[in-house]
Each structure stands twice: as C-alpha cells, then as structure tokens.
C-alpha cells in the first residue's frame, strides 16, 4: 500500500478551467442548474448552514443540478473544525450528501480563509469572479444566502 493510499488527501483542489466552456461539463442539459451562492459568515448566522441543508434537500430529488459556491467567511463551512459555527450539525450531516454527488463545492479563488480549513471535509474547486459570473449566467436559478 502506497503512502497516498494510507493517507489519502482529504482535500481535492482543482484548478480553474480557462477558458470556461460555454456549457458546464457537470451540467445535465435536461435538468435546471440551481446555484446556491453563500457569502454570509457561518460563525455569526445560520444562513450558510441553512443553504447547505436546503441544497442537499433539493438536490436529493434529482430534479435539478444543484451547485454550491462559498465566498469569503462562508468557506469555513468546509473546514475540519466546525464546532464554532452556527448550526454546525447541518454541515456534518448534509455536506456528505453533497460530496456523494461527485462534483466539488465551488469556492472563491484566493480566499483568505482557505488556509484556516485544516483538512477540508469536502472536495472543492477554486474559481475566480469572472468564472463565477459565467457560471451564474449558466444557472437557471441563483439563491443567495
């Protein structure tokens, strides 16, 4: 068994795709793309936890392709330690559901909080603001929390 197998990386960070394809590779054409855009601070408000809960609940029905984007302090939701976050059980309960969907959580590229995550619990992909704008335009619906 290799070192990589005994110590698999808990964090999978992908590099942004440049240029952005006009159609997201992860999008299913027959289903609408619903994007949860989370910018609030999970240490101060329940809104990020609620976004994750609603995203998991909505995506489970397979009627829409659900994606989550975390920006600024909201990135803490992916962290190894969520004890100090409001409604922290939502993160431990519902993020694994998002992880099972097989695509990464989108996060703000260069976010200062990324270094504070420890071992992130869910694979993520860093995207810059231009990429975010493109993906927003691809979405059928955007919900901001």
């Amino acid at each position, binding site marked *: 068994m290799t070192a990589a197998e005994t110590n698999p990386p808990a964090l999978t960070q992908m590099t942004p795709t440049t240029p952005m394809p006009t159609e997201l590779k992860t999008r299913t054409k027959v289903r609408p793309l619903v994007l949860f855009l989370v910018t609030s601070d999970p240490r101060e408000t329940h809104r990020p936890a609620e976004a994750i809960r609603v995203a998991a609940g909505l995506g489970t029905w397979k009627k829409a392709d659900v994606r989550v984007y975390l920006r600024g302090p909201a990135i803490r939701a992916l962290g190894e330690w969520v004890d100090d976050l409001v409604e922290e059980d939502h993160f431990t309960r519902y993020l694994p559901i998002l992880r099972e969907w097989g695509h990464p959580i989108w996060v703000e590229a260069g976010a200062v909080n990324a270094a504070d995550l420890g071992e992130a619990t869910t694979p993520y992909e860093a995207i810059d603001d231009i990429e975010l704008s493109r993906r927003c335009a691809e*979405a059928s619906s955007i919900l*901001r929390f």
Partner: protein
Amino acid sequence: MKHVLHLLNGPPDELTAKIMETQRAEGVSVEVIRLDQTQDWESVVDRVMQAESVATW
C-alpha cells in the same frame, strides 16, 4: 443571446454588481428588477416565468 434576470431587494452590493458587469461584458443580456421599488407584481411574475436564468440576491 443568454438572458439573465436579476431580482434585487435593494441596491446591488459589490459582488452582485461585479457579476452583472462581467456578464454584460461577456455579451449576456442582463435585466434587473428592484423588488423594493416595484408595485407591478404581475409583471415581475411574468418576467420570471419568461427568463432563462433568474438570480435572487
């Protein structure tokens, strides 16, 4: 041309403004409705039903 409807409940913040600006620059048709300034809810519903993409901020 891709058409995106942005529903705002107040003036756009920095992120919202940046996204709209970038979308315009990339040739996206951007429509903005200020929900806090509208009385014509029937029109809002009509625009939402017709939009390809709806962003609620």
